[in-house]
């Protein structure tokens, strides 16, 4: 033992120790800043540390799992149950939230249109399979005051019409159906026409306004509302927005492609207007004087909301008149009728 303390090996070890002690003392004097030597060492060691730490973590995890597996299993089950409970509550909450939002909107319809008699809020219970027009069934029927051909709406706009009524359910034909004809009025230009569904447009969720006067000023983004000519639909309810205009093949009239304000494929709740005041509205419809639906509905893209031209203003009393300036160019019996056809499908 005494030999060792006298040996060169001991002295060398002492030197090494002293060297490291020196480094330690030097590090202390750096006041928290890493010395260059420690940086070098650490940068070499860090990947190794990381690797070894990873291994040790995994090993300890495996060991821990092995030992506490039963506890973890129990805890896992409890947490799963809690999560399932919370999810159920979340779904319930989301349902209630959307129902309340719908009800708020429906209250808005009633407030804005005092003459409307509305059914209780109706829920869509099924959609017709393989139907290109998006026909659907609602959970309210004749016992809720719903009658055949009653208009179906949401706060955003017109959805369609009741085509079949049972005691506790009704079938709704959407405005995408070619079997439905609605008198339409362009708010901006005051041009009128008949809004009809078309198979070729129904695929894109659009419909067509036909029999528009060739000299119209309808442009993309214009708002189309119901003209209320026949008394079948309330006057001034939003139908949709113009996305495209053109001339009919016959060359006699123009047409406009309309994107309905309501995407019937995405709604879950609707309301049925069971009765409304069919007399002429006190205030003529202007872009600034629309009902709830028009206020809430947003155009598909930025629209030009310039005031109607002088020519348009002259036509502002046309709501109950012939919809075109030149009846010779149109088919008057079709234009004046805003009707649902007979079962044979003929207008």
């Amino acid at each position, binding site marked *: 033992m005494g030999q060792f303390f006298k040996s060169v090996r001991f002295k060398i070890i002492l030197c090494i120790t002293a060297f490291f002690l020196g480094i330690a003392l030097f590090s202390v004097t750096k006041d928290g800043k890493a010395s260059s030597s420690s940086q070098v060492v650490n940068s070499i060691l860090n990947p190794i540390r990381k690797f070894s730490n990873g291994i040790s973590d995994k090993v300890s995890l495996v060991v821990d799992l092995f030992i506490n597996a039963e506890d973890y299993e129990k805890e896992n089950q409890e947490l799963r149950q809690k999560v399932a409970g919370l999810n159920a509550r979340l779904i319930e909450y989301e349902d209630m939230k959307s129902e309340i939002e719908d009800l708020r909107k429906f209250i808005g319809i009633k407030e804005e249109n005092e003459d409307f008699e509305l059914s209780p809020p109706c829920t869509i219970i099924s959609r017709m399979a393989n139907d*290109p027009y998006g026909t659907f069934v609602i959970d309210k029927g004749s016992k809720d005051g719903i009658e055949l051909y009653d208009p179906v709406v949401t706060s955003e706009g017109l959805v369609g019409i009741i085509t079949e009524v049972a005691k506790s359910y009704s079938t709704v034909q959407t405005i995408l159906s070619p079997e439905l004809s609605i008198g339409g009025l362009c708010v901006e230009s005051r041009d009128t026409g008949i809004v009809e569904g078309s198979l070729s447009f129904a*695929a894109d969720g659009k419909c067509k306004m036909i029999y528009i006067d060739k000299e119209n000023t309808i442009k993309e983004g214009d708002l189309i509302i119901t003209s209320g000519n026949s008394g079948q639909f309330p006057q001034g309810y939003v139908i949709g927005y113009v996305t495209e205009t053109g001339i009919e093949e016959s060359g006699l009239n123009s047409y406009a492609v309309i994107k309905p304000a309501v995407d019937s494929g995405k709604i879950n709740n609707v309301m049925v207007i069971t009765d409304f005041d069919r007399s002429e509205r006190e205030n003529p419809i202007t872009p600034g004087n629309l009902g709830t639906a028009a206020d809430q509905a947003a155009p598909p893209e930025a629209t030009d909301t310039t005031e109607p031209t002088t020519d348009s203003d002259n036509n502002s009393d046309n709501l109950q008149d012939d919809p075109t300036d030149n009846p010779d160019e149109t088919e008057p019996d079709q234009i004046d009728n805003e009707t649902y056809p007979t079962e044979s499908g003929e207008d």
Partner: protein
Amino acid sequence: MDLKNATRLQKIRYYAAVRWTIYILLVFASAVLMNVGRSVKPIYFIPLCICICMIEGEYPAAVLGGVCGLLIDATCGRIFGYSSVIIIAICVTSVLLFKHLLFHNILNIIWLTAVFSSVYQLLDYFFMYAMWDYEGTGYVFRHISLPSILYTVIASVPIYLLVKPVQKRFYPKKSKIAEEAMKL
């Protein structure tokens, strides 16, 4: 029910009850599937009716066709009873074909489904769209009728695989004629 001690008639009744209960469940499952989602769907009832009619008689087949037709009308929004007429014809024809001409195998089910669903969809296309001369009826034919036929044919395979074991398990074996029994 103790089947070992039951008479042959009791067994036949028991098997028929179980078989038809399963058929009814399958019919309602098809109705539910027809109501799911908004995309083009197969008419599950057509292959289901054909499969069931492989071994059943004409009268049960006609009743089944009528019920399934009403369910199709309800789910597809057709005039109530319209599809019943077609499906009854399909069911009875299937019974007769399987009784006199065809073997009970999947290939026959597939081609019969293809033929009958094509007939159904073409009639549907004609009566609901083409006859009224609507603009763009070609869209319905290309994007609804044809895919629906294709999906129905595809659906016939799993439906056959569902129905066949039920029939195998719950259809009483044919009683042997006296000569066959004597040989044994």
